[in-house]
């Protein structure tokens, strides 16, 4: 029964990824990336990871798409003041020869597929990942957390709490860095704007 859901989702995932690779309009590519994130969130839900699915849908499909659209609106191909923007302003140029990258990707993919022959099969309860570390922490987590039923939350916020603290530090650092990168230098703002038109500001 579940296969009837899983197989179309996987086919759509693959089709979306190929579409993103082929399409030249960047707006459309960003939209397809959002669709890709939603599809992977659906698959994660089927794979028993609802927390990751929620986060992927909110962060991957939501925030990433918004950030990309904001960036696109700031980076048209023509300069901003030279008339109305058209969809051509958000198209990348056709790439030259896709043969060499295709070859590299195929070889890498074959090597990875060869590597999967040693992997434990999908859903195998005796796979090393299920046995080590001792999974008894799952039953212990509820009394440890005073009755919290969600084991993922228990591990994320308590057992691996320092990891989550580090994660917030990463977010903070990234936020500061974005602010510093995007901040305009007030003293040479006019000159940099005039120079960026001709692009000889190196």
């Amino acid at each position, binding site marked *: 029964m579940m296969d009837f859901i899983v197989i179309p989702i*996987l086919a759509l*995932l*693959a089709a979306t*990824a190929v579409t*993103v*690779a082929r399409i030249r309009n960047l707006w459309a*590519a960003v939209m397809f*990336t959002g669709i*890709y994130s939603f599809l992977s969130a659906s*698959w994660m839900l089927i*794979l*028993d*990871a609802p*927390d*990751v699915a929620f986060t*992927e849908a909110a*962060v*991957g499909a939501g925030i*990433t798409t918004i*950030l*990309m659209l*904001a*960036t696109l609106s700031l*980076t048209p191909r023509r300069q901003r003041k030279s008339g109305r923007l058209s969809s051509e302003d958000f198209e*990348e*140029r056709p*790439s030259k020869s896709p043969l060499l*990258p295709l070859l*590299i*990707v195929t070889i890498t993919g074959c090597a*990875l597929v060869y590597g*999967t022959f040693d992997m434990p*099969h*999908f*859903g195998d*309860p*005796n796979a090393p*990942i*299920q*046995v080590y570390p*001792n*999974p*008894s922490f*799952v*039953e212990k987590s*509820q*009394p440890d957390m005073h009755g919290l*039923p*969600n*084991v993922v939350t228990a591990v*994320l916020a308590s057992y691996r709490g320092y990891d989550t603290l580090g*994660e917030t530090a*990463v977010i903070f650092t*990234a936020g500061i860095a*974005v602010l510093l*990168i*995007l901040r305009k230098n007030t003293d040479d703002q006019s000159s*940099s704007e005039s120079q*960026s038109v001709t*692009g000889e500001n190196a």
Partner: protein
Amino acid sequence: MTEILGLYNYWIVIFLMMTGFYIVIARENLIKTIIGLNIFQTSVFLLYITMGKVTHGTAPILKASHGGESHGVEHGVEHGAEHGHELHAAAEGHVDLGVDAVKEVYSNPIPSVLMLTAIVVGIATTALALALVVRIREEYGTIEEDEILEMDRNS
């Protein structure tokens, strides 16, 4: 046949991963490259989540305990857990699914936790990369990689 079914998910994930990799190395538009990185990243999430799935398992959210907090959860034991105490039995392959219908089988929560962290760190790096693209566009007037390199060479 079981080989194909057991490894099918990994191959799909590898295909997605390689599509992202192709976008990163073949396309010269900087925003497209970041999109490719995002696709690669999401496929890595999928790889981890796939590994954490246990057959006939359910999401790792425990049933309400009947015996109170101190008593612990008797019904909510991960399938691996009941055998985790006797690793020898598991190693010899004595695990038999559905022996005890009362016991719940949970999928592994650890990949979920790791990927939650990875998603959030991923959005941080994406935001930083996009900010750099905006800055590059301000300086060079283009976001095509080869044009930028050309300008650098000519300057």
